[in-house]
């Protein structure tokens, strides 16, 4: 690690970046970044949330203009003033969040971005040829709305390849893929590399970086903290470079006698019709979460997790009161307040606007989910809010969860994602709930805060609560769960004890191998 950047202009580097700096107000998002990408290499850009990866990439793709610094393309100094200019140079990008129209076909979506007036049929033919030669199975005539996330990503990649780029930037490409889909993607990337194309691969998943990347540049707080060959590093040493210190491992004591523990959250044949044309129907979901255990629900995003959370939390109620039972009582007909009063607590996926009101103070956001359960402590006679008690409780949570903030009682929107998430999780833990349901507990949260939250969830379960965690992060689920179930297309598999679970088994279920979709094995090239 820590290798120096050689300043060669002899043309072996496709892209060289010297001292690139971007300042937003008082924040230096990128501080004198140096980066070399050679021809025919897969180069990893590593860093935590907020390390400056996105800002750097936006400057390379022409959507942001640097305050200072130089960019060399094939040894020539260039100014990249717009995404169009970047494409002309030969830089293509696949974004983390896709920009596709669901009601159009794959080929029509591609045609929209090419903008050169060639007929759809010829674009479809070219796309089909490309998808065949790169092992990216895709039917250009299919409607985007019918495609899985992995297939949608293929459209983005093909759309990028059609412009014959020399450098392809991929932003967190595997965050939405099953392990098997990710494997297919890696094959494609290796093939592109063998053709001499360069790839800038942005990720925080260290194992896959070690597996496919030739070199890595690590960013922390907007600065380059090291260049290295990831194959010579361990995941722990890469993490240390990213975070700046040792990340404590989460400890999970084994549970015993769980079979006899009472089931605190019972879900029986829970079904729900889709609320909108693009939402997922829930089909006959049954699950028990017992006192003392953490059950994880894995699944690719958009397979019904959001709908499931709403149904369990009571934001959407059920006709069948027995379809959700909390601590032995029918809760299907209860509101979220009624379910909270039975001892349940909920943490939704979206922090701002769902779990917290952005423009309200933290103390007010404490009241948001606890005005009923802690009615006596927080609300006095005649509905007057006991401001002092609420403030004291919020400060207690802030301290317990180590929430970092700039003011004593700031607005929720003023906190970083990780710190707000610590507060939102802490707000519920502070109640010692008997049932805790969490959707994406550490989405977009830095490694230190994530470890803190995961440890807290395990401790809650070991103190006798039932904890249900919905997550797209398999590493996380394997770290904290006692059993893992998989949600696919609105159906839930039987939970698999963690001792039997492997990435491969879970991955197959995520791809739809078991419940329903039995005929639908993984696509082959």
């Amino acid at each position, binding site marked *: 690690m820590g290798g120096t950047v050689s300043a060669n202009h002899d043309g072996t580097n496709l892209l060289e970046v010297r001292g690139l700096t971007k300042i937003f107000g008082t924040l230096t998002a990128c501080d004198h970044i140096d980066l070399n990408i050679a021809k025919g290499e897969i180069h990893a850009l590593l860093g935590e949330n907020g390390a400056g990866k996105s800002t750097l990439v936006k400057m390379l793709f022409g959507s942001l203009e640097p305050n200072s610094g130089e960019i060399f393309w094939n040894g020539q100094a260039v100014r990249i003033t717009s995404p169009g200019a970047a494409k002309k140079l030969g830089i293509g990008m696949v974004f983390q969040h896709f920009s596709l129209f669901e009601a159009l076909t794959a080929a029509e979506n591609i045609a*929209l971005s090419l903008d050169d007036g060639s007929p759809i049929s010829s674009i479809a033919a070219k796309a089909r040829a490309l998808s065949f030669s790169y092992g990216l199975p895709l039917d250009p005539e299919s409607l985007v709305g019918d495609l899985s996330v992995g297939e949608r990503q293929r459209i983005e990649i093909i759309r990028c390849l059609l412009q014959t780029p020399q450098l392809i930037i991929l932003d967190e490409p595997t965050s939405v893929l099953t392990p098997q889909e990710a494997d297919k993607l890696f094959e494609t990337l290796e093939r592109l590399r063998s053709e001499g194309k360069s790839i800038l691969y942005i990720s925080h998943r260290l194992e896959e970086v070690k597996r496919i990347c030739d070199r890595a540049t690590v960013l922390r707080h907007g600065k380059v903290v090291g260049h290295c060959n990831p194959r010579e590093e361990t995941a722990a040493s890469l993490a240390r470079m990213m975070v700046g210190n040792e990340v404590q491992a989460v400890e999970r004591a084994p549970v015993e006698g769980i079979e006899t523990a009472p089931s605190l959250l019972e879900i029986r044949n829970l079904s729900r019709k889709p609320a909108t044309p693009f939402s997922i129907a829930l089909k006959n979901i049954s699950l028990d979460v017992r006192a003392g255990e953490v059950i994880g629900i894995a699944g690719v995003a958009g397979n019904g997790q959001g709908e499931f959370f709403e149904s369990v939390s009571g934001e959407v109620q059920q006709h069948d009161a027995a379809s959700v039972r909390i601590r032995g009582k029918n809760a299907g007909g209860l509101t979220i307040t009624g379910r909270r009063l039975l001892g349940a607590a909920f943490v939704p996926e979206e922090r701002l606007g769902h779990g917290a009101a952005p423009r309200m103070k933290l103390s007010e956001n404490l009241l948001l989910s606890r005005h009923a359960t802690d009615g006596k402590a927080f609300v006095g006679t005649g509905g007057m809010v006991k401001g002092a008690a609420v403030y004291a409780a919020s400060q207690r949570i802030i301290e317990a969860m180590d929430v970092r903030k700039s003011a004593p009682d700031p607005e929720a929107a003023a906190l970083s994602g990780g710190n707000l998430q610590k507060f939102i999780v802490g707000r519920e833990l502070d109640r010692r709930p008997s049932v805790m349901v969490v959707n994406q507990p550490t989405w977009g949260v830095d490694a230190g805060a994530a470890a803190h939250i995961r440890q807290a969830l395990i401790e809650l379960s070991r103190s006798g609560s039932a904890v249900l965690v919905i997550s797209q992060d398999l590493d996380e689920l394997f770290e904290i769960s006692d059993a893992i179930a998989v949600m696919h297309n609105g159906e839930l598999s039987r939970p698999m004890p963690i001792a039997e679970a492997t990435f491969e088994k879970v991955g197959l279920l995520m791809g739809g191998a078991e419940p329903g979709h039995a005929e639908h094995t993984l696509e082959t090239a």
Partner: protein
Amino acid sequence: MMRLELVKRPQRSALFSMLSPFIAFALTIIAGAVLFALLGVNPLTAFRIYFVEPISQVWQLHELAIKAAPLILIAVGLSVCYKANIWNIGAEGQFIFGAIFGSILPVLFPQFEGPLVLPLMLLCGMVGGAAYAAIPAMLKTRFGTNEILTSLMLVYVAQLFLDWLVRGPWRDPQGHGFPQTIQFGDSAVLPELMPDAGRANWGFVFALVAAVLVWILMGRMLKGFEVRVLGSSPRAGRFAGFGLNRMVFFAFLLSGALAGLAGICEVSGAIGQLQPVISPGYGFTAIIVAFLGRLNPLGIIAAGLVLALTYLGGEAVQSALGISDKVVRVFQGMLLFFVLGCDTLIHYRIRVIGLALTKQDSAAKLEAAPKLKEAR
């Protein structure tokens, strides 16, 4: 070439949140000066007559209070609606129905007298306003109709209904055919506060009490918290277990009741009988009052007094300078226009861009580029 550009502030500006009404008022004065000059009147003279003379004597302050009371009562109720992101535009109709319901007792049962009459009338007025406001609330929660349209259109229904009442069934038989009801009996008249000094009645006290109570409700009580959460982030409100439909009814019934109270106070205090027209547009002007007062009940008291002055001033320039009384509407309209305009400064700052700054300029455009991409 130079041009102006709005740049979003990272956080809302507390300074401009406070200054905005004052800047708006100053801009209104400037625009008003231009208006008077175009009408051939010396602006300074006009402003003296418009803004200073109407409040230079004690009895005139009483007139100001009479005009301000309904504005404050209505605007305080509307502020709760608007904080909850519910758009009740029909306070004028709720005002009229409050006046009609409150008048049932003195018009149909004039022989019933005593200390109970007035409290019952006020109560009926509030019930009438709330009941009329319940119509758009029900349409919105049941059928998802837009409350702006329904509440606004119901104003015209109320106006025509009142017109029909005073020309038809409720017309004073001894009134020589004039379209009006009988004069209210003594026990049905809202007493004046200080009869020796001026005409101001208890309506102004009700307005101040309502403002303070709503201020406590919004700032200190769980219900006010519910209003603010549902208004600012409805999904978080649903997560909190607050019901949006219940909130629609709460906000409409509260603002309707206060508008209805204003209506019966106006009829029982200032007018003394029902007539075809009982309001110079209080229900609409109160919308301006609510925003000029920053949707804060205490700010609304001040804003109510300012807007009341525009009514008095309008009457004064009409009699002194012969300018149309429509000038009142023009002034009120300009004030709302500038208030809403200046509120932009709370979330945005203005950047002047000249030729020398083209580089920054293009950077700003590029920041917008990812959005364009998504749209593609």
